[in-house]
């Protein structure tokens, strides 16, 4: 990455944060048996897979991991060019399950709202929680995360960039002044 960006989480930091969130999920669900991890495209998907792998490493539990594309549910479609649709893949019947939505950055909350709408069309989970790598504030909707990797106070004139190995060939979180 270029010099004018300041890195706030290194690859090792991301790994530690993922392990902590994984422990918190197990703790809150007393073993995570009915938990389904659903990553929001695009960078939430590899993060959900990292959490699933970490939980398998701790106690051998293999959690189902799904993918959710919220492009069809956005509330800002008029301002955005037509985006490519990502894959939506829900591997199990969600009825009664404990869904943990996973995304990279929590900002306005609009992506999460769209994801909640999409999930309600795909099934009726018993509970939905939210895990994010970074919470940068500036919410525009009454939404909060249940598991937060790092709280990162930012200005709306800054950009937060998350990179993951599976998509970007490197891992970490950077903040950039626009």
């Amino acid at each position, binding site marked *: 990455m270029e010099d004018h960006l300041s890195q706030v989480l290194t690859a090792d930091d991301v790994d530690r944060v993922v392990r902590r969130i994984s422990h918190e999920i197990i703790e809150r669900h007393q073993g995570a048996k009915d938990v389904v991890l659903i990553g929001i495209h695009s960078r939430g998907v590899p993060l959900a897979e990292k959490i699933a792998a970490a939980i398998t490493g701790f106690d051998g539990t293999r959690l189902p991991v799904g993918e959710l*594309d919220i492009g*069809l*549910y956005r509330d800002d*479609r*008029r301002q*955005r*060019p*037509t*985006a*490519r*649709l*990502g*894959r*939506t*893949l829900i591997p199990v019947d969600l009825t009664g399950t404990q869904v943990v939505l996973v995304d990279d950055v929590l900002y306005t909350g609009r992506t999460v709202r769209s994801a909640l*709408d*999409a999930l309600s*069309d*795909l*099934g009726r989970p018993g509970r939905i929680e939210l895990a994010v790598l970074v919470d940068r504030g500036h919410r525009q909707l009454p939404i909060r995360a249940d598991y937060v990797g790092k709280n990162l106070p930012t200005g709306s004139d800054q950009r937060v960039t998350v990179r993951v190995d599976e998509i970007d060939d490197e891992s970490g979180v950077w903040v950039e002044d626009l």
Partner: protein
Amino acid sequence: MSSLLTIESLTRQDIEEMIGLAGGFREVLDRDVPKVPTLVGKTVSLLFYEVSTRTRLSFERAAKALSADTLTFAPGGSSVAKGESLKDTALTLQAMGPDLMVVRHKATGAPWRVAEWTGLPVVNAGDGAHQHPTQALLDVFTLHRRLGALDGLRAAIVGDIRHSRVARSTSQALVTLGAEVTLVAPRTLLPVDLTEWDVATADGIDEVLGEVDVIYLLRIQQERGGGDVFPSIAEYVGRFGLTRDRAEQLSADALVMHPGPMNRGVEIDPAVADGPRSLVTDQVTNGIALRMAVLYSLLSGEGAA
């Protein structure tokens, strides 16, 4: 893209993007709740001057699965019976506030005129014997779902090529994606000028049976004079019908397609139409997903009014 009027205007990349998008919508159709809120508040006007079952229903289903509203116009029992022109009808419908028009008309070029008069995005749902781009796209989407990339695919299109907008559009889409197309028809049912088609031709279905991966059958278009150019149905079936015996000469994994409506027992034997090689019902379901992709592309994002 502001309108979808012809396959010729699409590059290979355009077609591949549309296939990718349609795959996403196909997944939506397979859900317990096969509906998304993407185009809520949008209205799609269906202006169908020629009779249609599957195309009109398919567009309606596609629009509704995206939560758009539909306004359907058919000339029977409408002001067209009282002498209203295409232009006045189009402008009247436009005044009702749709965001897009889907147009089918017997005259070549009618959808272009509607686009000019109304300034709206227009989807050509068939203009005379000229173009039917969403049929072509759903055909290549259906093949792509089954086979992956179509480079080198050997396809034969059999029947009334001259009067068929499907033959023209689908062969263009196949060629654009790298397939080899052979048109099989009585000479009287081939287009007069084939110089721009980039296809081979054959005089009888038996010439191609063992050598194709896909055989695409067309009905004889009685309403455009297609039935007047050969002596009898029996003679046509004798040289061009996909009978049960002929279907057995196809290679083991060859596929059979038909855009509908089918004349069972003429261009296709009923047992073949309903058999394991047949993609006919896949074409119908995939057609909804493909039309969702087209409506989404034209009405979502920057292109939207």
